[in-house]
């Protein structure tokens, strides 16, 4: 079965509608009206309902169109997905480490993962980049602008 934009949109419609239902269930716990005027739950409930309606409308509007009229969905190849998601996972992993090992080391690790792991660069230029990017950013923010970046190892 070919994956088309139509099918993807139908799926997203359902996901958005479900998210809307979840938000609505939360929003309904807040007061809709409060002493005769809109309360904290008024707008969130309305917006959640809008998401449900929008999601369903997207699904239905795509459902009534034949699949043949839709373009193929541009699904990233395995190679592409490995690169794009690879960068994101590297980011996720290093952000998780910032408090433990401090900002500089974490960012060195991030650039290293990207350059060595994803870009497969080697040699002195890569090494220099790995060290210089975090160092420059650190100098700019921590030294010049006095941002108290985490130093790690319990140093605060």
């Amino acid at each position, binding site marked *: 079965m070919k994956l088309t934009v139509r099918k993807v949109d139908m799926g997203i419609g359902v996901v958005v509608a479900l998210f809307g239902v979840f938000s609505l269930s939360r*929003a309904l716990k807040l007061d809709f009206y409060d002493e005769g005027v809109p309360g904290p739950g008024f707008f969130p409930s309305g917006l959640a309902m809008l998401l449900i309606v929008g999601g369903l409308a997207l699904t239905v509007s795509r459902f009534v169109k034949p699949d043949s009229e839709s373009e193929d969905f541009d699904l990233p190849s395995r190679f*592409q997905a490995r690169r794009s998601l690879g960068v994101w996972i590297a980011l996720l992993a290093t952000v998780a480490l*910032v408090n433990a090992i401090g900002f500089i080391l974490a960012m060195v690790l991030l650039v290293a993962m990207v350059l060595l792991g994803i870009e497969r660069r080697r040699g002195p230029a890569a090494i220099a980049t790995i060290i210089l990017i975090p160092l420059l950013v650190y100098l700019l923010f921590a030294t010049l602008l006095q941002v108290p970046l985490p130093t790690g190892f319990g140093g605060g």
Partner: protein
Amino acid sequence: MVDALQGLTDGFAAALTPTNLFWALFGVTAGTMVGVLPGLGPPATIAILLPLSINLEPATGLIMMAGIYYGAKYGGSTTSILLNIPGEDASVVTAFDGYQMARQGRAGPALGIAAIGSFVAGTVGLVGLTFLAPAVAALAIIFGPPEYAGLMVLGLSLVLMLAGSSLLKAMMSAAFGFLLSTIGLDLFSGTTRFTMGQIELTNGIEFVALSIGLFAIGEVMMNVEEETGRQLFKVPKRLKELFPSRKDVKDSAAAIGQGSVLGFFVGALPGAGSTVASFISYTVAKRFAKHPEEFGKGAIQGVAAPESANNSATAGAMVPLLTLGIPGSASTAMMLGALFLYGLQPGPLFFRDNPDVVWPIIASMYIGNVILVLLNLPLVPLFASVLRIPYHILYPGIVVISVVGVYSIRNSMFDVWMLVVFGLLGYLMRKTDFPTAPLVLAFVLGPLFERAVRRSLILSAGSPTIFLTRPWSLAFLTITVVLLVSPLVLRNKIPTDVIEVEA
């Protein structure tokens, strides 16, 4: 009028002393730098330099602080255009078209028009501040909750004009952005909404974390899918192509004009500010453009309008500060704090009682604007050449600076986590053709709209007629209806992206 001219003349005499000139220069340079770097904004910078300024004369200290404030608006566009990293709130919109221009090898003209637009608008705003301050201050006070609600209806209806290929997806994106903006402590009831027990969420999601995630990280993830050879997009070598052409300037003139005027008035409203000004000016530019379909794809007016608006908004924001003692933003609140420290009490009599403080500040802003455009235009080729860096080196840099920039806003790792989450969302939205612009627009305007509506209804004890009985509110609602209906009436003027309504 004559008084103002006299005051301004005296102000120039005072502002042109070597000391004051030096601190103006210092302020605008620091401001440009802070604006260029994502994250840390003007209020934090003013705060860092407060101890330094306390040893200066009041006028001199304020000259420096004002310099940081409007200087940052010049710098803010740089990373938006070059790297799709919005440097601060007010330059998020600039990324819509600025970055697309950079992709097409037109980073130079984009940066150039931002500087020119900022200069023109900054100066127009200052003329407004010089001669219209009392009248505009009166307007700022008239502007109560129903008026804000009307203005926000106008702003939010413009979501339709930010719609890309699908109106339905744009509206879903906007609804989601609005819903995200409701997270946190609700001022009116004292209860928290959707915080899932997280303390960090009681203050809501940080706007810059959200927009850098959606734009910068999402874009990097898209770009790296293809193996990155050398540089991602071409940068012309010839100096001529690094600056806006005569045609670029001509095309942008109207956008700069309306941005200057709109920005000044919106900036003068306490609680609205330069971010709102930039959004409204962008959508107005799109609404009245000959080729609205080019917006979002690298239209130069899409850079000129918001950059002009956010700059003249800084002059606008000085109006309530200097004439009423009412700060409209964190930056002007810092300046008010400094004035208190000097033992000064700005208010309705401030112009009369302290002309020796007020006029040098205003005069220095004229001078600062000239310095900024002279400083920024020569930097254009230098900044544009950042794009010559091979992408495999540039993008790790983008990611690192995004992380640190977001952290620096309020020293929060939680905000960095938000960056990570919204980075993935930005990537997925790009993949599935959901526009991100309506999301950020609704995130900014939504809370203003919600609060204004709720306040209005508190005033009217629940009766919605208040929106029709207050003249300004009625005016905004009327304009909204006209703007929405007119394309349907004037068939030939229908922007192609608005007609494509879902079946």
